[in-house]
């Protein structure tokens, strides 16, 4: 027994000391991080004409920049909202990942300034942007980054020439003009044999594509940026079996209401449409029974958009302190349930349009027998704005109700889909 113990002990003595001198083939973690940071640094500074930068803050929209990095931790920057080129500092640092920090105040930081007097951001929050970014991916000409604080995506695209730099900010205005050539509420595009309903939101630079599979609506959405005649998607749009990263060569067609583009090397067209691809007839019922504000009314804060012109009847300019056009779907009028559009300003109620007798639902569409009772309003400008609103509501073809998001509904005229109200 004792011998056995000695044998074990001896075995332990001779086997205990195993030296392991192996090193990672690719170098240590530190060495690899250092190498990747050097590579990013070299890439950033190597762009002769600098980089075009596109930052997506989400609800506060997309901002466009020109960056010129040198190898001395200096960067020259201009932006669509502040085109004067200014110099500040940057550095690369290994935080949890290789990261790019804009480490002294610059044009970019204005977006994130917590002081509302600086760039009209929210107090203590700014516009939800970033100035510290981690590297997500890099190809020779495109670097994708993501903010560390608000997770805003930043895409850097290598600029090819001085001319391209000069054109980048003007390109945004041009793109908005081109896209606003599509004046109807409903827009379509056909890619790889499938027709999609397209929706743009220009203030937030968002695009969404909806298609129907066995009657079920499928929607993909992404923020987009304008780079010359191209729009790039911050989040690639997965459409059936294809993935769309960008649309190129976006131009107005000579025909009215058509915009040409190239998707994955194929010519495609955005076209106007006066009806939805598939209309959900159940929406109207829910809309009438579940007003979101206090359970009483829906709020269309801007009045009618007509052919892409927001607040076409200028409610904001005609009604002093205008606060909203509210739709009350369940108004008890002398014992009869009816509906009313009521105009509100800072001082309160300033006129209404009554649907009397109650609205008619026809094939899921809503028809207002709008009996305008705005005659009590004596101010001429105010009355004209209300009259114009009433005239559209009186269209005998009625309106589609489109659910655009949680407690968000658009009322779109059936006649030609050029007039709509957005309720929330």
């Amino acid at each position: 027994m004792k011998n056995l113990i000695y044998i074990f002990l001896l075995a332990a003595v001779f086997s205990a000391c195993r030296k392991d001198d192996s090193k990672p083939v690719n170098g240590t973690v530190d060495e690899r991080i250092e190498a990747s940071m050097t590579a990013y640094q070299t890439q950033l500074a190597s762009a002769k004409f600098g980089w075009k930068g596109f930052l997506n803050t989400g609800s506060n929209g997309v901002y466009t920049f020109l960056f010129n990095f040198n190898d001395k931790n200096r960067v020259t920057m201009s932006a669509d909202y502040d085109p004067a080129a200014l110099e500040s500092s940057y550095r690369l640092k290994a935080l949890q990942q290789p990261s790019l920090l804009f480490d002294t105040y610059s044009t970019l930081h204005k977006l994130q300034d917590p002081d509302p007097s600086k760039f009209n951001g929210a107090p203590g929050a700014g516009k939800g942007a970033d100035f510290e970014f981690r590297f997500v991916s890099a190809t020779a000409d495109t670097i994708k980054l993501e903010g560390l604080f608000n997770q805003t995506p930043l895409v850097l695209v290598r600029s090819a020439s001085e001319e391209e730099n000069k054109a980048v900010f003007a390109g945004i205005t041009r793109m908005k003009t081109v896209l606003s050539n599509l004046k109807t509420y409903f827009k379509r595009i056909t890619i790889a044999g499938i027709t999609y309903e397209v929706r743009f939101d220009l203030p937030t630079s968002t695009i969404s594509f909806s298609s129907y599979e066995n009657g079920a609506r499928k929607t993909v959405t992404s923020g987009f940026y304008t780079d010359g005649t191209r729009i790039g998607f911050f989040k690639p749009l997965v459409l059936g079996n294809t993935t769309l990263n960008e649309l190129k060569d976006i131009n107005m067609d000579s025909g009215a209401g058509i915009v040409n583009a190239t998707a994955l090397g194929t010519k495609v067209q955005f076209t106007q449409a006066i009806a939805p691809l598939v209309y959900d007839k159940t929406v109207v019922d829910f809309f009438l029974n579940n007003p979101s504000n206090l359970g009483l009314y829906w709020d269309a804060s801007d009045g009618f958009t007509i052919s892409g012109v927001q607040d076409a009847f200028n409610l904001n300019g005609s009604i002093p302190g205008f606060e909203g056009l509210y739709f009350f779907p369940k108004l008890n009028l002398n014992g009869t349930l009816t509906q009313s559009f009521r105009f509100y300003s800072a001082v309160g109620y300033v006129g209404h349009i009554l649907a009397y007798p109650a609205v008619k639902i026809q094939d899921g569409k809503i028809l207002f027998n709008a009996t305008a009772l705005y005659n009590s309003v004596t101010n001429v400008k105010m009355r004209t704005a209300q009259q114009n609103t009433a005239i559209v509501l009186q269209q005998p073809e009625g309106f589609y109700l489109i659910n655009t998001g949680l407690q968000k509904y658009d009322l779109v005229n059936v006649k030609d889909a050029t007039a709509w109200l957005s309720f929330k």
Partner: protein
Amino acid sequence: MVVAILITGYFTGCKKKEDLSTPLVGLGGDTWAKGPLDDWISTNYTTPYNMEIKYKWDRSELGEINKDVVPILESKVIPVLETIKSGWINPYVDIKGGDFFKKYVQKQIYMVGSAQYNSNGSITLGVAESGRKVTLMVLNDFQKGNRSSVERILHTMHHEFGHILNQNIAVTSDYQRITAGSYSATWFNIAEEDANSMGFISSYAMASKDEDFVEMLSIMLVDGEDNFQALIATLEPDAQAKLLKKKSIVISYLKSAFGIDFVALQNKVQAEINTMAPLKK
């Protein structure tokens, strides 16, 4: 025999020779290409006073890393540092000498562009940590030559330096007995005038005996004797007596603990402020 093998085995068997010459990658903290601004800081702060001035963004330097705060504008760095040098460093160095200052000075200043917005609706303008580091905020709004800008920065520096002095040699305990019952954790709900009428020089002075002491010291230095007298004149006799007693303890403390002539120091600070940001007549 076996035992002998075991013993030698234990003592000789496991001799590992480690290679300690491998360089560590990324050691040495942040690096960047130094520019004229870095040279200025090195010449005016780091070399003479062994202070680190950090103006480049580093979120980890902030006490609360989840707040939206932005870095300083480079063009504000030197004006702020010049103001601090004139109105805070120079008076102490002139009166007590460089060695005294180097011994007690907080070693790091972190400069930030905006304020920090807090969830209780207040904003933070500066933070000091245990006599080692001072974080100065809202520096993007700093205007050289603007009296209130200059006074605000200097007030912070004198306030924090007061803490260091007090932590090294504590003020006599008769100081805290003057307004013993009035200290309050909710000092921020008390208006300045109300604090004054209770015998405090500011509402923040009500936070604790230590804050009281350094507020007294820093406000008297930065606002000057005339303003102090003007404040006293508006108060009831009881509050007057309390503030005057606090003042006399501050003066005797500086003299006995550090051999500093308070009036001379105050005059120096005032002279510097008046040169940098003359009062508009």
